[in-house]
């Protein structure tokens, strides 16, 4: 410090900006290199304890589960959808049928809240179809807002073969 103050009083002291700029550029390069663009992800929550289906005591609030059967073709693609035994053309129709069954009221103790969907899928079915089915039964997007339908979802035990 003392060395730098060699000039007479009142002189402008020039600050050497080079190290600061170096550090700043290094920081910027670090952040630019480590930046990872992550696609937004979300979850479908499922609560499925073992043996819950057998253990659950029937009560007045209980509504029979909606059975959705997804059949697979030879290559694992979706071959057919059935809801409570009736054939459904596509996931959009499945959604319409679910709305027809439970309505759009999703408040506390509503029919939609008490209803459960049981997914019965073929072993070789591609998982993407399951997510489509869950998307169809659990809600819809209306004017940018999510309208929730059935949130309780469970699977039947896996069947190999």
């Amino acid at each position, binding site marked *: 410090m003392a060395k730098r103050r060699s000039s007479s009083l009142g002189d402008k002291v020039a600050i050497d900006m080079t190290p600061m700029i170096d550090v*700043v550029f290094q920081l910027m390069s670090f952040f630019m290199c480590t930046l990872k663009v992550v696609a937004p992800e979300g979850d479908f929550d499922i609560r499925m304890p073992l043996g819950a289906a057998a253990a659950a005591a029937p009560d007045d609030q209980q509504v029979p589960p909606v059975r959705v059967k997804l059949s697979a073709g030879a290559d694992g693609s979706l071959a057919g959808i059935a809801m409570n035994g009736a054939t459904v053309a596509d996931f959009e129709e499945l959604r319409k049928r679910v709305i027809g069954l439970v309505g759009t009221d999703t408040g506390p103790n509503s029919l939609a809240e008490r209803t459960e969907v049981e997914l019965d899928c073929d072993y*070789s079915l591609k998982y993407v179809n399951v997510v489509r089915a869950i998307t169809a039964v659990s809600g819809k997007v209306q004017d940018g807002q999510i309208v929730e339908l059935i949130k309780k979802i469970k699977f039947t035990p896996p069947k190999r073969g």
Partner: protein
Amino acid sequence: MARKSGDGPSNTDIDMTPMIDMTFQLITFFMFVMNFSEAEQDDRIQLPLSQLAKPVEGAMESPITLQLTNRGSVIYAGEMVAVSDIGTYLEREKTVMLDAGKEPSAATVIVRADGRSKTGEVQEIIRKCQEKGFERFALRAQYDEGR
């Protein structure tokens, strides 16, 4: 150009202030968009798309991430494991939970399964988790903004 008002050649001081301002703003931007979350993600998994898969808000309690590839193997803690062997690792998770004084039912198993994987394998993973006492599952999907 109009600034060169002096006579003859003189030392022109470059004003560094705008550059430094801009650089600091860039740094701030990168710091904000940087993802510090410890979310386990793997490029080998192509998650199925869903409009309803809204990004998760807040941290989950005791998350366990299991990633299923389209070839039927599970990526657990960066390690490739066969679906049939996942029980051993889940037993370990269960022990850790019990040692921490928590029940396995309090943990959430995040299932990041590839869209091309077999549903039966996802179900097998879920069943193996259930056998160890885990009962909360989160099926992860990629948020579909397009449709």
